[in-house]
């Protein structure tokens, strides 16, 4: 197969780098745009902060991806940087929980994570789209090893408690049957001349051909039980070898059943730009990115520092903080500039002398509810019994989905599933329960899809984002109205303070948004510093 691929004497990356060196970044950006690259996430390669900042000091609040991106790039550009971080680890919402970890949420509910060696839950982000070029680039630069994240897996389930007697259907069956029936309907309408207003005779012929191919229709443009429809939806018994090799085709679900089940809804996730293949995850947990940044920055990060006040004047910024574990005396840190990545939900409670436009923007942003529950089972029954290797099953139950691990396939030992990941009212109600109740219910919901749950369940961990002490929610809840009114004011430099983070981006809840907002903020800050 490789022989058919065109030879690539120079890859795009080195081409861009060369253009950048010879012609400067504007021309490089132009070249990348023409090749369809730069527009993808607004990232056009490592930031270049040219000119000497002469040791200008910048205090960064928060060691999440936004804060650490700023620290890394400003340090490299010659700034004196310091980060204050509430937690005792780098990463912020870039976070994985492993066996041996202890997590205490607001209210004092403490969970001791007992996952087996190497297994984890990503309470926050868990997938990186291929076009989130900034995050991917930092992974490469920081040597964070990536592996495929499977969004769409045809062997997973779509489940409705109100359809098919509550029996989960395979994704491939629902997809084949939905496509097949819709193709048949459209072909029928075309053949009965009902589409003559919309398509020419010439187009109609192609449409019919397309419907037959897309929907696996027979020569009469009908979608029905056959070996060729089973090629899409799967067989009752697969074709094999030798004397027992005859395949038994499967019976498609009826059109009405497919429609009324609403399981077709679950087919759309992978159509979304951000969830299209390829997606990636760091080997060993999403938190590996935060760890890598943390290693790179070393003692530039002061951990366990709870910010209690931010005060600026014409010369600089003074931040007061306390030990986040023990309280204790208020300490001060000063710098000429401040990049604040503290979530708006918390920043709105911290005294800070910024002008009304930024203050109003911070106060206007509430945070969405989200919960995740990780469940460890004695064995990977989804692989061993059901041939599901990674991917996601969707359900109308309150746990919303089951995410299967996208690594360590065929392992004989235990495995950790994402047993619940939900938003909105379901997440709010999950949050109101003690962790053990969230886990109990998640096992109960999941056992309606996988009967093995009851027998194989070992241990669970539940993270509800409104109970996370350092975010008070999952991500900034922007609406179009709020954006129109406040977004520019949130992002603009106020005196000597600029904000960054996913909340200061148009990719809310995505790590890419946090990194891009940070790069945008330091670019503007750098220009201001050089201008004197």
């Amino acid at each position: 197969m490789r022989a058919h691929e065109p030879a690539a004497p120079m890859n795009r990356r080195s081409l861009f780098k060369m253009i950048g060196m010879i012609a400067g970044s504007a021309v490089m950006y132009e070249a990348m745009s023409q090749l369809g690259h730069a527009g993808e996430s607004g990232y056009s390669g490592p930031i270049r902060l040219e000119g000497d900042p002469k040791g200008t000091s910048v205090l960064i609040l928060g060691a999440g991806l936004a804060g650490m991106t700023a620290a890394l790039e400003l340090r490299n550009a010659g700034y004196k940087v310091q980060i204050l971080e509430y937690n005792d680890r780098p990463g912020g919402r870039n976070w994985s929980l492993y066996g041996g970890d202890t997590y205490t949420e607001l209210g004092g509910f403490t969970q001791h994570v007992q996952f087996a060696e190497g297994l984890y839950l990503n309470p926050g982000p868990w997938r990186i789209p291929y076009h989130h070029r900034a995050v991917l680039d930092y992974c490469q630069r920081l040597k964070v090893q990536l592996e495929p994240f499977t969004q769409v897996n045809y062997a997973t389930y779509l489940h409705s408690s109100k359809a098919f007697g509550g029996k989960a259907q395979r994704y491939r069956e629902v997809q084949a049957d939905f496509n097949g029936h819709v193709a048949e309907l459209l072909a029928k309408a075309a053949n009965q001349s009902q589409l003559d207003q919309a398509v020419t005779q010439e187009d109609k012929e192609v449409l019919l051909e397309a419907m037959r191919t897309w929907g696996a229709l027979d020569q009469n443009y009908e979608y029905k039980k056959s070996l060729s429809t089973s090629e899409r939806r799967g067989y009752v018994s697969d074709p094999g070898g030798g004397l027992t090799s005859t395949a038994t085709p499967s019976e498609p679900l009826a059109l009405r059943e497919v429609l009324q089940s609403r399981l077709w809804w679950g087919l759309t996730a992978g159509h979304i730009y951000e969830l299209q293949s390829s997606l990636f995850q760091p080997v060993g947990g999403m938190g590996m990115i935060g760890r890598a940044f943390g290693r790179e920055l070393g003692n530039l990060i002061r951990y366990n520092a709870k910010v209690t006040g931010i005060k600026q004047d014409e010369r600089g910024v003074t931040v007061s903080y306390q030990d986040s574990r023990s309280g204790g005396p208020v300490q001060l840190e000063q710098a000429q500039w401040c990049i604040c990545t503290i979530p708006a939900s918390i920043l709105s409670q911290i005294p800070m002398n910024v002008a009304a436009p930024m203050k109003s923007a911070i106060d206007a942003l509430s945070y969405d509810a989200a919960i995740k529950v990780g469940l460890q089972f004695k064995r990977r029954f989804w692989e061993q019994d059901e041939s599901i290797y990674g991917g996601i099953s969707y359900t109308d139950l309150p746990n919303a989905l089951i995410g299967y691990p996208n690594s360590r396939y065929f392992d004989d030992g235990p495995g950790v599933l994402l047993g619940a990941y939900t938003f909105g009212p379901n997440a709010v109600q999950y949050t109101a329960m003690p962790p053990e109740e969230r886990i109990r219910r998640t096992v109960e919901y999941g056992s309606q899809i996988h009967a093995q749950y009851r027998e194989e369940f070992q241990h669970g961990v539940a993270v509800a984002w409104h109970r996370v002490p350092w975010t008070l929610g999952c991500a900034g809840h922007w609406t179009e109205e709020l954006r129109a009114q406040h977004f520019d004011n949130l992002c603009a430099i106020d005196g000597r303070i600029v904000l960054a983070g996913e909340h200061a981006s148009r990719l809310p809840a995505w790590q890419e948004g946090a990194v891009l907002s940070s790069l945008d903020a330091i670019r503007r800050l750098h220009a201001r510093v050089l201008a004197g």
Partner: protein
Amino acid sequence: MDHWVALIGIAGLAVSSGCIAASAVDINAGSYAQQTGEELYRGICQGCHMPDAQGAIGAGAYPALANNKRLIARMYPISVVINGQRAMPAFGTDLSDEQIANVINYVRTHFGNHYKDAVTAASVKAARR
């Protein structure tokens, strides 16, 4: 992806737009079936304000609703529940007038609060903008 249009969940429930990029397609967001004030407090409010209504403190804080003097003015909790305030999300679109009145009446007569002047569904309706 703040321009995401409302999606229809498997359960046939409309999912609010402008939610979370990573999530909108993943969600079956559900709804609030609780009706009495106590059910609503246990099902929603205690997530942040805690089962004893004492609130909680981390990097930021959730205020205590217990012995809360600001609850004396009925309009204050009505406005906060409907519209949200800072970290407090708005519940105006997800809860009915009756549900909002019931939960406010529950909080204003429990946890050391003894405000006798009940909030009515009509006053919640009137307060909606």
